């Protein structure tokens, strides 16, 4: 796959994070996370075709099963069960959110982060975009008031780090990657249980309603 196609796939990952920042519907957020994970799986499939490393195919298939199929299904069932059609709002309003997104994207492309984005000079543009995705995902978790949005934000952060890793040539051994995916799967199950518990106890997924802990 040529660099333009890879750039397109990563641009979709990046674009989905912006969408996650502005969307008001949980259903769309869950589906877009699945699409984002699909892009990551395709990038890994591409690595398999280029290197012929069968373990990459195995990992890509696992990512496809866990993140593209299981995770969105988990979220959609949760949304349907608790009728969570609309997501809880953000701390900052949309114009301010977009301004911060622009600043973070600019920062990721700046010379300050050149040591990171220059790990593989041929992939500098891709690494800058992956780094911007990491920053935006982090901001997504901080800016969102909804528990479900926070979970999707964390998973999106993980996707962005995986993308960065691939383009920086920092893939780990298949066994360790398997461990990481297993961890993510367990994390997903636990996070889903917690969302149900939060809804049961607080009647909403708005984390600002959780104020039982005081110093």
């Amino acid at each position, binding site marked *: 796959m040529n660099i333009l196609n890879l750039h397109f796939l990563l641009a979709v990952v990046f674009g989905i994070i912006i969408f996650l920042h502005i969307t008001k519907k949980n259903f769309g957020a869950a589906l877009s996370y699945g699409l984002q994970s699909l892009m990551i799986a395709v990038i890994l499939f591409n690595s398999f075709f280029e290197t012929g490393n069968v373990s990459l195919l195995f990992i890509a298939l696992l990512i496809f099963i866990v993140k593209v199929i299981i995770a969105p299904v988990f979220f959609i069932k949760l949304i349907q069960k608790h009728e969570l059609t609309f997501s809880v709002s953000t701390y900052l309003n949309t114009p301010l959110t977009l301004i911060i997104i622009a600043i973070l994207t600019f920062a990721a492309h700046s010379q300050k982060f050149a040591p990171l984005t220059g*790990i593989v000079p041929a992939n500098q543009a891709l690494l800058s975009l992956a780094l911007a995705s990491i920053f935006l995902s*982090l901001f997504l978790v901080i800016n969102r008031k909804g528990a479900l949005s926070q979970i999707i934000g964390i998973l999106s952060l993980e996707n962005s*780090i995986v993308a960065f890793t691939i383009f920086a040539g*920092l893939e780990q051994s298949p066994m360790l990657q398997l461990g990481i995916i297993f*961890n993510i799967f367990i994390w997903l199950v636990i996070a889903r249980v917690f969302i149900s518990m939060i809804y049961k106890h607080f009647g909403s997924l708005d984390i600002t309603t959780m104020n039982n*802990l005081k*110093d």
Partner: protein
Amino acid sequence: MEIIFIITTLIITALLNILIKRRFVIEFFSIIASSVALFESIVVALKVSASGVYSPFVFFSVDSLGAIVMLIIACIGFIATIYSIQYLRQETAKGIIGFTRVRQYFVLLNIFLAAMFLAVTANSPIFAWISIEATTLSTAFLISFYNKPSAIEAAWKYLIINSIGLLLGFLGTLLYSTSVSSLGENGFVSWQSLMANVAHLDPLIAKIAFIFVLIGYGTKVGFAPMHTWLPDAHSKAPAPISALLSGVLLNVALVVLLRFKIITDAVVDQHFTQNLLIAFGLFSIAIATFIILNQKNYKRLLAYSSIENMGIIALGFGFGGLGILGAIMHMIYHSLVKSVLFLSAGTIFLKYSSTKISKIGGALAILPMTGIFFIIGFLVITGAPPFGIFFSKILIVSEGIKTYPIVSVLALFLMAIVFIGFFKHVSAMFFSEKSKDIKIGENSVWLIIPPAILLVIIIILSFYIPPFLSRLINDAVSHY
């Protein structure tokens, strides 16, 4: 072989506990598993003490500091398991929990212990990261154990903040492997290969990677300002779990962080990592001190004290030299005494059914043994002579005064404030008029024996360090 035996025993026990329907059998198996872990950890520590590094398989490697932390996990894990049995029986008798909760508790406790052993013995930084993440996942349900809104809120905060922190730590970990990525090794990057290829690591990348790792694992260690989850999680969990979280888990994450410090120090001027540790350490002490002063909840008081003490340990490693010796000694003493305090706090909670300091009156008269343990624990943790922490603090501050005098004086001043704050709360709880509606007397001898054993160990270690432990400490000082 010993490491695999420890981990498989704990995992098999956790799995068996899922199937077993008799409480006594679950308790018995858990005690056996933690005893095996303790015995095998001592064997590993003796081997490391004799040979320097113990690496039975490519996936596992234990150095001196790793062996010390293994001993801490095993010792406090064993004591916490014994204490848990009676603690949970008392809670069942009060109608707070049922059998399902007890089973869930022992399943998660064994997984938690296994994950901590894996984190310190893993030879791969990624494997260590997976294990640290596993500790988060296994303890999340232990924090929300009582299924109350406040406990769920604490567990959610713990899960989200630690997950973000650890993902940043993951990115930092991966950045370190830029030095070995081109060398093959079938993608398996070990601590040794990172160190061996340190010449290929770009200093700027090493600096950025260390910042990510410091923020990531520092979140788990409880460094301010990433500490916000810690007082909530440690105060809401059952007392034996709080002892493990505060006394053990923080050190496990710190060991992983320190391994990255060694690698970074080999590439960039070591003042870079030292200054960062000093900054986070001092900030943690400062934040904890002012909150301790006005604390209203004794479990949160202990949690903030953990933040303060992790800050002191960070200062020790930051100062270097004798400070490192002080930091390692402080790590050992703090783990033991914090467990004594949390276990005693658990007994107080069982008696008074409250964690508010204002609701605890005349605890020394009502719980004489527990009261004495808590008061001795307070004296130990605040650095009163002749206990070990007094000497570890002296070592850290005396090293710091040479190179960072202002930081050292400030830290000393803050430690004095912590003593005053702690003393105020201890006086209010133990020397005030006793509550009339509370029955006098300890609930069970099995709530006294576990903290008593730890207290005896602290007192012995304050005056005598066994030769094998002394070798481990000296070796760790020379490496870190």
